[in-house]
């Protein structure tokens, strides 16, 4: 199972790869991925080392430049003089997903409860008082999108191990600059709000995508306090 951060970033990466390299090149890469690892493009994004190895086989050191591009268009890591590093979401698709998620009252409550007290799904639903049927659907969506991540286990009444969940982000900072915005037919639409996130500690190390993309940018996750 890919890490939550990889699940989140992977959604935007697929369209970025297809757009950058073109459909035909992606088909060739996918054929090679199937031949070598028995994975398609989406699966290989979730297991990013396989995609990295295949890009290197195709483009040699040129893969560094491609991955650097992906990194730049996906996230940028702010480097304050002291304190923890906030991550700016550069990709529109991802930013919109985060905005939509935190704009949804029920999802926001689930994420807040899970962050404050990592718990099994049943406990989260009880704490949030969201009806179970819609609650399970919302939690599944959050897990699929990578915004809710597994953190440890609890034991159920029959002795089975059950996943506990927590939110991927500790803080989300959304800046909307309304300075000078005049809405007329000719005026361009306002740009997307800036979305910055503070990841839960040590999450960065679990992400294959981040490790590879930061390597392309000559950075290491261990040098970055999150």
């Amino acid at each position: 199972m890919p890490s939550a951060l990889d699940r989140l970033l992977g959604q935007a990466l697929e369209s970025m790869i297809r757009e950058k390299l073109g459909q035909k090149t992606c088909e060739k890469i996918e054929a090679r991925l199937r031949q070598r690892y028995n994975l398609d493009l989406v699966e290989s994004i979730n297991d990013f080392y396989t995609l990295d190895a295949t890009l290197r086989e195709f483009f040699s050191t040129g893969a560094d430049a491609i991955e650097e591009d992906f990194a730049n268009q996906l996230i940028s890591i702010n480097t304050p003089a002291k304190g923890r590093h906030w991550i700016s979401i550069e990709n529109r698709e991802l930013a919109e997903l985060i905005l939509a998620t935190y704009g949804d009252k029920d999802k926001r409550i689930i994420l807040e409860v899970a962050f404050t007290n990592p718990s099994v799904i049943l406990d989260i639903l009880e704490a949030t008082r969201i009806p179970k049927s819609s609650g399970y659907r919302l939690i599944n969506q959050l897990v699929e999108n990578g915004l809710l991540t597994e953190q440890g286990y609890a034991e159920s009444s029959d002795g089975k191990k059950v996943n506990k969940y927590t939110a991927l982000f500790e803080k989300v900072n959304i800046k909307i600059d309304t300075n000078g915005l005049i809405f007329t037919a000719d005026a361009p639409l306002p740009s997307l709000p800036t979305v910055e996130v503070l990841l839960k500690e040590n999450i960065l190390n679990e992400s294959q995508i981040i490790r590879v993309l930061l390597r392309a940018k000559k950075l290491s996750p261990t040098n970055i306090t999150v």
Partner: protein
Amino acid sequence: MSYSTGENTMEPKRGLNYKVLLLIAALAVIYQTFNYMLPETEGELSPIDIVFTMSIATCAVASFIVSKRYDHSAVFGQAYLALGIAFTAYAIGDIIYNFQTTVLKIDPYPSIADIFFFAQYPFIIFHLIRNIKFFRRKISKVTIIWLAAIPVVLVLLYSYFTFQQEGYSLFDYYYGLPFVAASATSLSFAVLGMQVFRQSLLANVWSLLAVGIFLNTLGDMNYYYLEIFGLYTRTHFVNVLWFVAPLIITYSLYRHYKII
């Protein structure tokens, strides 16, 4: 996660078909043999001229086909479109050149065709830079030095051999200078491209492209040098260089199409 290994890990084919290279070499020999054999009648279109234009047009068509294949990709679509435009401009220049020679019966040097001949270089250079920039972000100082050194040395050689001899036409020297400089610059970027794609699946594609551009540059330098002294004839060896260069580039396009 477990991966399937064994026979499935066989690397994709990246090699060249030496039969195709031999065929290109054979075409070059046949071309130059006919070039010598067929009489050079002033004002008449020879089959050699038609074959020559066809080799350039083939390369233009091949570039457009490859460009179409990568229509929506950020790099290859635009880059190969530029290469197609470059060879189209070259082919148009050649057709105008032949039209002026055979229909208008005028000496096509200098000529309006030169605008089209020259137009190929910025488009070829755009093609090369587009590819290089996509796959290599940082270029070292050493690379920048040799990148600049290649055209500088070639222009100096062109100048040295011109002024070393008596009877040169200063106008023709200056007229040929931008062509030589632009052609040499395209060679410089082709060599960088070859370096960037070394060890990748596209290594041979870029080697072929660099060889094609090298032959083109060699032909250009020779031609503009010959024109300074009025020594250019249709049977001259430069024509075979110009004839073979687009064929080699066409083969490189075919390999690109097949590989990725």
